[in-house]
């Protein structure tokens, strides 16, 4: 592959990987607090629609992005209410959230199906973008991509170097001990659920505002589920999430390239690629036995004390 093919494919890799990166980091944060939220697919698509609508209505893409995050957090709040408030089964609640979220987005988005939004445009960073090869791949992107570069660092720093991050992790590992230590356990889980939902919503917002620049029904197309799988692949660590997200970005960029250049492979078989890769990645990361890095009390509700 020559450079003039490789550079656009790699730049597209970053763009395809970015929404998955936001969503994966969000789910890592939620799961680190001990709550399993399988509603990622639903939160993502609702975030995408809310961002699209807000940006179209106000003409302000930044506001759209923020609204997308808030929409993701609002949907996550339902999961928090059912699981933290009412002791509902986390797996079932998350699945219901995905079903409802997909329904909400396709219901309220139906009148806008196929309509476009200007959203975020590419902004080449002056000095950095002129570095050969690296510049056009990493630094000729839109603002949301640049923001996403900082996200793994921020999440990692929060989880490992702040008191609140440590508390959040201990709530996910051993809530009984955290209660004994006087930590507001439910409070930290709510933070994990809401902040995680916001990041997932950002991922959705990226899809409509920067990736496709339009709204179509079913826009998220399983990316939320890929993010759930990547949390396991990443061993719940932000940096590995970046690796996983760009791996999937690469496969999607490759798939689009194949479709665009015309190939003998039917598109339905090409479309299977990311899903098949998800299975492969999951199998490989489970190879060594138990999932490494899973918070010990993930998915288990804290029952009210006697």
């Amino acid at each position, binding site marked *: 592959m020559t450079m003039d093919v490789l550079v656009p494919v790699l730049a597209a890799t970053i763009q395809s990987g970015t929404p998955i990166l936001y969503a994966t980091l969000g789910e890592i944060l939620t799961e680190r607090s001990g709550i399993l939220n399988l509603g990622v697919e639903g939160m993502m698509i609702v975030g995408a629609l809310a961002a699209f609508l807000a940006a179209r209505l106000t003409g302000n893409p930044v506001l759209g992005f923020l609204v997308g995050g808030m929409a993701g957090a609002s949907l996550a709040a339902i999961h928090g209410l059912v699981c933290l408030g009412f002791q509902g089964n986390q797996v079932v*609640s998350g699945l219901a959230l995905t*079903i409802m979220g997909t329904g909400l987005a396709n219901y309220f988005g139906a009148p806008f199906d196929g309509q476009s939004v200007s959203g975020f445009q590419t902004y080449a960073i002056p000095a950095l973008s002129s570095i050969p090869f690296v510049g056009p791949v990493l630094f000729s992107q839109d603002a949301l991509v640049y923001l996403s570069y900082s996200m793994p660092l921020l999440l990692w720093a929060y989880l490992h170097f702040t008191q609140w991050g440590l508390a959040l992790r201990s709530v996910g590992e051993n809530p009984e001990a955290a209660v004994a230590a006087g930590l507001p356990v439910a409070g930290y889980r709510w933070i994990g659920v809401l902040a995680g939902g916001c990041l997932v919503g950002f991922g959705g917002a990226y899809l409509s505002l920067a990736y496709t620049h339009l709204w179509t029904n079913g826009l998220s197309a399983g990316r939320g589920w890929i993010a759930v799988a990547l949390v396991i692949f990443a061993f719940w660590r932000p940096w590995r999430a970046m690796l996983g997200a760009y791996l999937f970005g690469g496969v999607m960029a490759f798939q689009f390239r194949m479709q665009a250049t015309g190939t003998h492979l039917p598109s339905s078989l090409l479309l299977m690629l990311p899903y098949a890769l998800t299975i492969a990645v999951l199998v490989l990361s489970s190879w060594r036995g138990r999932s490494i890095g899973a918070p010990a009390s993930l998915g288990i509700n804290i029952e009210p004390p006697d």
Partner: protein
Amino acid sequence: MIRLRVHKRHEPLGWRSLFIVLGAIVLSFGIGSIFLAIQGKPGLQGMMLLIRSAFFSVWALEDCLIKAVPIFLCSLGVAIAFRLQIWNIGAEGQYALGALGATWAALTFPTLPWYILLPSMLLLASIASGLWALIPGLLKIHLRANEIIITLMLNYIGILLLDYLVYGPWKDPTSFGFPMTREFSPGAIVGPIGSTRLNWGILLCVAAGVAIWILLKFTRLGFELQASGENPRAARYAGLRYDRLTILVMVLGGALSGWAGFLEASGNLNRLQPSIIAGYGYTAIVVAWLAQLNPLSIAIASFLLAGLRVGLETLQLDLQVPAAFGQIMEGLILLTVLAGRFFSDYRFALRRRAA
């Protein structure tokens, strides 16, 4: 709050939980009518219309039964896995594979008489969907790979495989470019019962329902499923065959969903086409949890959620309500019922304390 924990697990399925479910459904319908109103449709009248057009005519009830068949079979399939706390979310893909297996037999041996061809289609549907469900089962027991994500990914892949076949190798050359196979031969079609639009496949539902009920209630296997589901680790120590049970519930559950795909292709569409994928596999998950994994309740819940789909068709025609409204309602009902069960636990505990 203090009294809550004590009785959480031993909540019996009494008449009280029916009230909780009813309350939750009323709440969901209330929220649903608000969503209708936001889109400028008549909210409450819309919901009344939905219920009326779902259950208040013979034609509609017939429709409910037709749609309840695939939902029931898929739901039964996922429920036996859920009993073991194996999260088989893959009914949708297993259903697609069942349809593929049956269609392959129908297209390959069109001249066989029905009494050979239909059982062959059933068998091939079971094999295709059973094997499809075996993949996540094997990956789960040997590598501890998360079955939720793998079954879900296999849904996407199974549906794309179906698309590939009906848009490609299996496409009827005389279909004017429409993605569909040619119509099945008469021997490959599960016929209607008398002059109704129902087909004989409903007997398969009854047989499957009764068989699973007996299996769960009266056999050693059913007891093992129950015990292992409640506490997998303890079950392993007690020498229960957790891994083998996992494989069993996956393959059996997959085959049940596959039967649904077979009946839908053979009995309703009389061919294979993309519209066979209608989300029954996901509705089945909602049904299984609403019914608390009990076969008889699954039958009732399948019928009711089939009614939601039937009523929605009228809303789509009369009020131009997008089809996605059905998903909103399914998700809402499940979420409210899930939250509502908390109150049934709470009340139960209070009473116990007073005594």
